[in-house]
């Protein structure tokens, strides 16, 4: 941390005075994404010293998750890392499941791996695209946004939203994959791989890009390790630490993939590591598509479709005699459109997982089960205890430390955001570089204010 506040004045030999200058960068500077303030002390254009101020996007995530039921935290987790929201969903769910000692089905694990890797792709594409744009390479940004769109369309089809997904639930996921989704994903990945190759050709040997990135933002392995770095930045600094390999969770031990490692730990290495990770992610998803246990056969609707609303009306009139055997078409806005699918993607614990909507509308047990999980003061009861769970998300190690006191909501829900520890190192990364180098160094961190400030 900088010791001196006053900028010193020195007399040079030629008689002119030299004085260091303070320059404020951000928060309303476009390259600071509107949420970071860096105060720099400059000698000419060289950064002598700097201080980073965060907290502009603080939304009290941890406080809020102490007062809402366990499943209601998912919408908040979407907004932690809003470039890869599905991964935050998965990590939080795994934290609560660890406390509950509940394990979702195998198919659900595969779905979680697939959506995590899709998120890693969108995250890395945004990061590289945005930092290239900040260096003037607008084309790369547009190309990557195009590729991200291929994936976002699939995410939208799966979850109903592009960003505020809230797809994962404690004990499973909201609903099974739509019909033909995996085939469409496979095609989208082929198109994405082409875009990655295109951008590879545009950037990797580009003289301007190379000069701006090479040997800029250097951070040696020991400093990065001591500061708590993880993810692509730690790997770029030479440590092949990846929780997917070191502490395999979900079904990551069933896939064959490599961990790219950088040589010196500068911005260029970070860029290369991210590019390679995207290719590895595509490979993981392709393997997962091959391995995923086949879901239930779609059950055909009977000749007279019967919607949930009609069913409620019928039940009010007492016409319930054939309801248990009848196949029902539920409004697509309701989750769980197929009873059989719900069983395949959710843990078989009715204390945790909502019943399929057919049961909720169709019989008293399902209705009671639904209310016991939804009503205020009821809901999932997580036994007393504490657990820490960590996932390898796009930026590094995302951890949830959850303490439960046995009631319907968390007693303490701490997020370990990877960005927070990376941003600690920003000062070290930019000190000694030029002022203009702040932009690529800051970009290489892929700071996401949502998870940094929570």
């Amino acid at each position, binding site marked *: 941390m900088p010791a001196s506040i006053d900028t010193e004045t020195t007399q040079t030999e030629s008689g002119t005075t030299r004085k260091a200058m303070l320059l404020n960068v951000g928060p309303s500077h476009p390259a600071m994404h509107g949420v970071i303030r860096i105060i720099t*002390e400059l000698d000419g254009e060289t950064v002598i010293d700097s201080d980073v101020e965060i*907290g502009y996007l603080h939304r009290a995530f941890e406080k809020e998750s102490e007062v809402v039921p366990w499943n209601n935290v998912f919408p908040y987790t979407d907004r932690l890392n809003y470039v890869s929201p599905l991964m935050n969903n998965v990590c939080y769910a795994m934290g609560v499941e660890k406390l509950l000692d509940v394990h979702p089905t195998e198919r659900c694990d595969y779905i979680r791996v697939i959506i995590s890797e899709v998120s890693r792709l969108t995250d890395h594409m945004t990061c590289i695209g945005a930092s290239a744009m900040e260096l003037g390479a607008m084309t790369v940004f547009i190309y990557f946004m195009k590729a991200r769109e291929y994936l976002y369309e699939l995410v939208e089809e799966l979850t109903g939203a592009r960003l505020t997904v809230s797809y994962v639930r404690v004990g499973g996921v909201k609903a099974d994959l739509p019909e033909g989704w995996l085939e469409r994903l496979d095609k989208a990945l082929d198109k994405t791989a082409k875009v990655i190759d295109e951008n590879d050709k545009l950037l990797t040997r580009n003289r301007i890009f190379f000069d701006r990135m090479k040997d800029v933002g250097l951070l040696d392995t020991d400093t990065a390790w001591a500061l708590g770095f993880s993810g692509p930045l730690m790997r770029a600094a030479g440590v092949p630490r990846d929780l997917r390999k070191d502490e395999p969770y979900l079904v990551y031990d069933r896939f064959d993939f490599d961990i790219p490692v950088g040589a010196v730990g500068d911005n260029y290495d970070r860029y290369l590591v991210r590019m390679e990770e995207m290719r590895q992610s595509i490979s993981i998803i392709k393997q997962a598509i091959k391995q995923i246990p086949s879901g239930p056969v779609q059950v055909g609707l009977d000749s007279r479709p019967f919607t949930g609303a009609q069913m409620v009306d019928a039940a009010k009139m007492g016409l319930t005699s054939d309801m248990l055997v009848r196949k029902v078409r539920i409004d697509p806005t309701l989750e769980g459109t197929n009873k059989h699918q719900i069983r395949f993607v959710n843990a078989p614990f009715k204390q945790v997982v909502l019943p399929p909507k057919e049961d909720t509308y169709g019989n008293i047990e399902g209705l009671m089960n639904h209310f016991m999980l939804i009503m205020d003061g009821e809901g999932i009861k997580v036994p007393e205890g504490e657990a*820490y769970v960590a996932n390898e998300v796009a930026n590094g190690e995302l951890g949830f430390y959850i303490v439960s006191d046995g009631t319907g909501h968390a007693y303490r829900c701490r997020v370990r955001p990877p960005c927070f520890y990376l941003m600690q190192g920003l000062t070290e990364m930019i000190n000694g570089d030029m002022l203009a180098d702040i932009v690529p160094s800051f970009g290489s961190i892929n700071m996401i204010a949502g998870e940094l400030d929570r």
Partner: protein
Amino acid sequence: MTEPATTLDDNPVIARLREAFGDAIVETHAHRGDVTAVIAPDRYKEAIRLLKTDAELAFDFLTDLTAVDRLKLKKKPRFEVVVHLYSRKNNSRFRLKTRPANDREPEVDSIVDIIAGANWPEREVFDMFGITFTGHPNLKRILMYEEFVGHPLRKDYPVNKRQPLVPMREIPEDRPNIYSF
């Protein structure tokens, strides 16, 4: 936390800590497989140093540092600082906790001089819980602004509490760069 206290003496980390600190280890457990030890606050810094520098254990990576306000659990002492450590050498994790004795002005030794990465997390715990870290080089609020009243993650801070409006800050003439550093 609430599981019956197991001794965990066969665990090498716990055994090493017991050997070095004896009765200062207040409690140990391994709820859901997370090996945990609670240490007296006056030996906390030593314990971190031992865990980091011991050649066998080598817990040299600070995964996370946070705190829990145990007011509503009706437990004493009220605050608990929770440190998660990771050892690359053994690929294992460990959780160390300490409970500052004073509930009104909780104070814990800072570990920034041992693990540099504890700098911001300690500032955050200070900001959110009001726990002072003695020896921290730059202990000030990090997520909240300086004029913020109270510590939001304390259990006696209501979730819907509103803060007073902050007047424009005066800039002293002798220190034009007061907001820096």
